């Protein structure tokens, strides 16, 4: 279970990217965070594993406050958080297998990492997951030989091989064509169900979010302005998220829980 309390981020430039975000994500929920560019979606996701350091507030994963951890403790905690990136962020010159196994680095010694020597269980798991993401037999290909869709599958495999307690995805479909985007979204929903872990993804394609997510979070200008199911996303609430309009209908008001707005 992931819980954020009053999570706030102010960049050194003075930009307040997140005002005060409190939310809970649990079970095998597939949660999509939507909102216009610059609303703070990426910042929110990156504050969870502290790739971006939050200014204040807390992030709790299964009861551990991640914001209070030392850098060594944070490394251990990060093993439980899988992350998928918009630009895949693979090591291009390494093979598919090496990239997938990098998800197990937190469990092996420096020397083993240097020699690319991973435990047998890790290798078996990696093969299994490559099969799952549809890259069976590709383990020895170098990543720079792959297509965008295949690369993102490697990125997903790397996150899943961590056996994480939560999966984060920062705009995983933005660099992909529409059809591949659907495949990736489907894969992510399958993983949430099969591995029984929540998935939090930020995405700017509302159609994809509505089509695949169990729950939507709407962010506007660093504020959480919507929290509800895809069915509850009406034209009015859409306007609130994307244009910062005030709510007009009572129906839309109901869609926003009491704690959702400040």
């Amino acid at each position: 279970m992931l819980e954020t309390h009053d999570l706030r981020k102010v960049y050194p430039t003075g930009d307040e990217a997140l005002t005060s975000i409190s939310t809970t994500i649990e079970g095998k929920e597939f949660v999509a965070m939507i909102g216009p560019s610059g609303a703070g979606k990426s910042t929110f996701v990156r504050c969870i594993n502290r790739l971006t350091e939050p200014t204040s507030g807390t992030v709790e994963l299964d009861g551990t406050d991640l914001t209070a951890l030392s850098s060594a403790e944070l490394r251990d905690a990060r093993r439980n958080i899988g992350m998928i990136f918009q630009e895949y962020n693979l090591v291009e010159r390494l093979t598919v297998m090496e990239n997938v196994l990098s998800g197990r680095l937190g469990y092996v010694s420096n020397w083993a990492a240097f020699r690319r020597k991973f435990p047998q269980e890790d290798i078996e798991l990696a093969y299994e997951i490559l099969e799952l993401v549809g890259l069976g037999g590709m383990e020895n290909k170098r990543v720079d030989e792959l297509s965008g869709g295949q690369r993102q599958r490697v990125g997903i495999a790397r996150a899943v091989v961590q056996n994480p307690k939560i999966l984060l995805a920062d705009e995983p479909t933005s660099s992909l064509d529409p059809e591949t985007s659907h495949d990736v979204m489907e894969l992510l929903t399958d993983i949430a169900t099969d591995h029984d872990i929540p998935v939090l993804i930020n995405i700017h394609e509302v159609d994809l979010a509505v089509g695949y997510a169990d729950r939507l979070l709407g962010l506007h200008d660093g504020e959480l302005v919507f929290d509800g199911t895809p069915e509850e996303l009406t034209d009015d609430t859409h306007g609130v998220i994307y244009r910062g309009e005030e709510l007009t209908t009572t129906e839309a008001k109901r869609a926003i829980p009491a704690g959702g707005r400040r």
Partner: protein
Amino acid sequence: MVAETEQPRSTWHRPTTFYDHRVKWGIYVALAAFLAWSLWGILAGVGLSRFTEGLGYGVTLLQTMYPPRTEAGDLVRLGDRLLESVAMAMVATAIGVTISIPVAFGAAQNLVSRPIYLLSRAIISISRAIDGLIVAIIAVMAFGFGPLAGIIAISFKTVGFFSKLLSEDVEDINMGSIESVESTGASRFQTLVYGVVPQIVPRFVGLTVYRWDINIRASAIIGIVGAGGIGQLLMTAYSRYEFDYVASILLGIILVVLLAEYVSAVVRRRVQ
């Protein structure tokens, strides 16, 4: 034309990097004047007659060089000293590159803290600021004549060159890959060997071979101040007016340098 905010719409001038067109022409005129003054200073003291006279001496020198000496004993000495130069270049490249690795990482702004960055940059600047021959003279004074001084001088110069270029490549790596490796809970060292090293290996190999080829040339010349190798033999032959032997030595150097350049080009094409 910065002052004129409201220009007539009918004319347009490309903005200049010199702030103003008058400043631009001023700089051009100043540069031309300096060049003219320098030329005048040199030519006034030399004169055309000295130049033509010099050409004559040059031709005589070339004539005494031909034919190059080919006696077996001299050629063996030449071969030995050439081999010494190549060996010096090899050892100096190995030592210099090894020292460069930590310096290069230290000089990459995206990986280290400010004090380490500044220290590494200082090492690079010192190595680059002093010319190889001057380093060699100091090394000869400290360690005596012979290849040891040459190896030290060339290694010293290698560090500045290699660390600077490699650190620029380290600064250009894709930080997204580093971030994703970190996000799995990898340690700093693991991030380095998994995220950074694979991205710079091809450049590292290419730069090593390139520097090796430069070092071959340096080791051929560095002997003229007594730091070992073929240069020392060249200097001796020259001071004894054995110009036919000088010619053989120069041909030997050219052959080795061309060979090294060829090898370096082939290797670099294959890895990059």
